[in-house]
């Protein structure tokens, strides 16, 4: 993937000043909707999601991967979680939101889907999509892995990230 960025940097790094400003400027474009949708898709409460410390990071990740416009269309579609999961256009995005929360992973949105998107949205509405080459199969970050909710759901922690203490495994799980 060859990112064609109009900006002066090719890959934003968290903590990089220009990147932080960029996110602040667009924070109004759906963070609240993102939290609501995350609650509906993951089955974890807003408080549980907030406790992971990952809300903003995941939101920013979506912005960087999808672009602000496409993300806004997704978050403000007016569809509920059930309809989003079944939607040919938004379903793959809803599943990736679950993946990022549950597994800390992103799954590449396939070419077939890209074709569908090109038919549904104007070029303007797709502006910024995959600008930084982030649409690939990958672990999003070590903290995304660490806070993967799949582990919390099963009463464990992501391997190598939690130390419940000596002999904790001898007791039934919480």
């Amino acid at each position, binding site marked *: 993937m060859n990112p064609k960025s109009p900006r002066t940097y090719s890959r934003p790094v968290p903590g990089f000043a220009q990147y932080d400003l960029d996110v602040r400027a667009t924070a109004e474009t759906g963070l609240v909707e993102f939290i609501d949708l995350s609650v*509906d*898709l*993951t*089955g*974890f409460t807003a408080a549980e999601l907030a406790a992971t410390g990952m809300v903003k990071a995941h939101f920013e990740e979506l912005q960087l991967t999808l672009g602000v416009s496409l993300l806004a269309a997704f978050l403000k579609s007016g569809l509920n*979680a*059930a309809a989003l*999961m*079944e939607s040919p256009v938004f379903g793959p995005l*809803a*599943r990736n939101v*679950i*993946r990022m929360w*549950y*597994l800390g*992973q992103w*799954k*590449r949105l*396939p070419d*077939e889907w890209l074709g569908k998107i090109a038919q549904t949205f104007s070029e303007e509405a797709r502006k910024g999509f995959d600008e930084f080459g982030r649409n690939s*199969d*990958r*672990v999003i*970050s*070590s903290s995304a*892995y*660490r806070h993967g*909710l*799949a*582990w919390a*759901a*099963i*009463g*464990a*922690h992501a*391997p*190598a*990230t*939690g*130390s*419940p*203490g*000596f*002999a*904790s*495994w*001898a*007791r*039934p*799980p919480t």
Partner: protein
Amino acid sequence: MSEESPTAKRHYDVVIVGGGVAGAVVAKVLAESAYRDHKSISLLILEAGTGAGLSAAGHESYLENYFRASIKTPNAPYPDSANARAPEDIPKLKPPWDRYYRQVGELPFGSNNTRALGGTTLHWMGIALRMMPNDFAMKQKYSTGEDWPIGYTDLNPYYEMAEWELGVSADRSDQLLIPRLSKADFRENYEFPMAGIPRSHLDTVLETAIGSDFEYELAGSRYPVRLVPLPQARNSMPRAEAIDPRNYLHESRRPKVYRPYGAPEDPTTGPGQRCQGFASCIPICPSRAKYTALKTIQQLRDMNRLSGISVEIVTRAVATDLQADDSGRITHVNYLRYEDEDLPCAMRHRISARRFVLAASAIENAKLLLASRNDQFPSGLANRSDCVGRYLMDHPFVLAWGRMPSGAVMGTFRGPGATCDLPIRDGAFREAHAAFRTDVSNWGWGLPDGAPGMDVERMIEPDPFRQSYDGKPQAKLLQSTALYGKELRSQLRSDVQRQITLGFLMEQLPEHGNRVTIDDGWKDQLGVHQPVIEYDISKYTRAGIAEAYRFSKAFFNKVGAEDFTDHEGLIGQKIEYEGKKFKYIGAGHIMGTHRMGSRADESVVNDYQRSWDHENLYVTGCGSMPTAGTSNPTLTAVALAIRSAEQIFRNLDLARL
């Protein structure tokens, strides 16, 4: 500083090639013995990989690599160096070749090692089992395989020392539950240094389900089926009354009470003092409660404070060949030292020593001996028997997985990977087929099926393999509609809590044709040979695999689990036996390439791991094992290393201080 520079010295008492567990333990026994006897000694360890793991920052970088790896394979935390490649985690039989092995046999050899200071103990599980007494006498007892030149009784005192050197947590009374081990196989007053690792909740649930009367029949004999706690090189509670058997330690250095050794940079305090339940032993223990050879390496570095003791450890030093004089005595080892892991640039060095110890892994040892060929030794050093590289063995690892009844809560994905096994490891059935050791996994379907990620995939996308997965879905696990929200959360929990996996470590016999060779057309960027491997799995082992699956069905039936084993599943290499298809993966137990024996014409080393052909050359590690048994081999390699080091020290006339 964690990385050490090239040495200024050019001559040593002993040079050791390989900074893994065998080399580190040989060095430690030599250094401690010298100190005990008030003698001076100079040792050099050459390690081909880097030494990042010794520092807290390096350990942190290993962890970060692990977190970010999409597939969390055994070598995922440990970066590859183009100047000291490690084999890939998933073997390739065809081009594009594995970056390191070239496989030319019928089947892919599935096991790899780690090339870094600490060696493969960086990613090992930490299971520290002794071999069964009959494993040393397969030919005599079962007319198959090979006999060792030494038996269990010879090795028993060295097993004790090895258990103290690695820090093994186990209860002797538990070990006596293994069928065909008896009280006489342990010294009466012997105690492991630390109490056994507590068994998991999963073990407790299964133990109840198994009941007390479950027996399994093999070749006409009935064997009790019960969960037996595994001895583990992982810190637990020290035993106040246990007496240190390591006679190579000077009295002043033999602690009255065993002290667990934690993180190398902070061994006596901190979380490494006790297993914390990080549940990631393979490939990395964050707390460092699990033994790695880095602990012994750090102890060796600390020994430089003692008068007369000099231990140098040089990393990024790839040994290329040994040189011998006309009498066959080894005079030098040549090595290449690189600075940058990726640049094809290295300095050549030459070191002389009185004794040479190869401890670079079964594959590297064989490779190095073969690559040292010259006019006098045209088939390589130590190879008059033509056995170098041959009799390569592994424990082909096959998996069976099942689902406990609805509502079961096993406590999956907590604690060490396995805390108990189901040992039916010896008996007359070994005349007909391989024995197997059955680990009971605490990590659900993590290994066979990629749980819990794959469970999530199946739930959120009912046909997840449609576009981008190579494997085929397990039809009976697919949902009809996608799950999300609270339903997803609760379904994931209830499904994963029901998962159990049995892992069978299959015995493999020494076969003449299973071998490591070298080829001048297969070298790395420094011009160093890379291994060429021929490998197959014989009928003896395949028949054992079929038996293992028959056992898994009886076991699942007994505990009320539904069998979900899927031989078309995601990982492994396909093999067939009598029309049935199975899959295996490597266990990481690379054995047999420089076998020991009682005759120079059919083995590479004698029972002290000394080359028959070169009186000052020792070849150590799992490669010396004539048969594989079913025990994870590291403890045996360490016991052999201690025994060899004792012998080296005895015959090394060192100056008195």
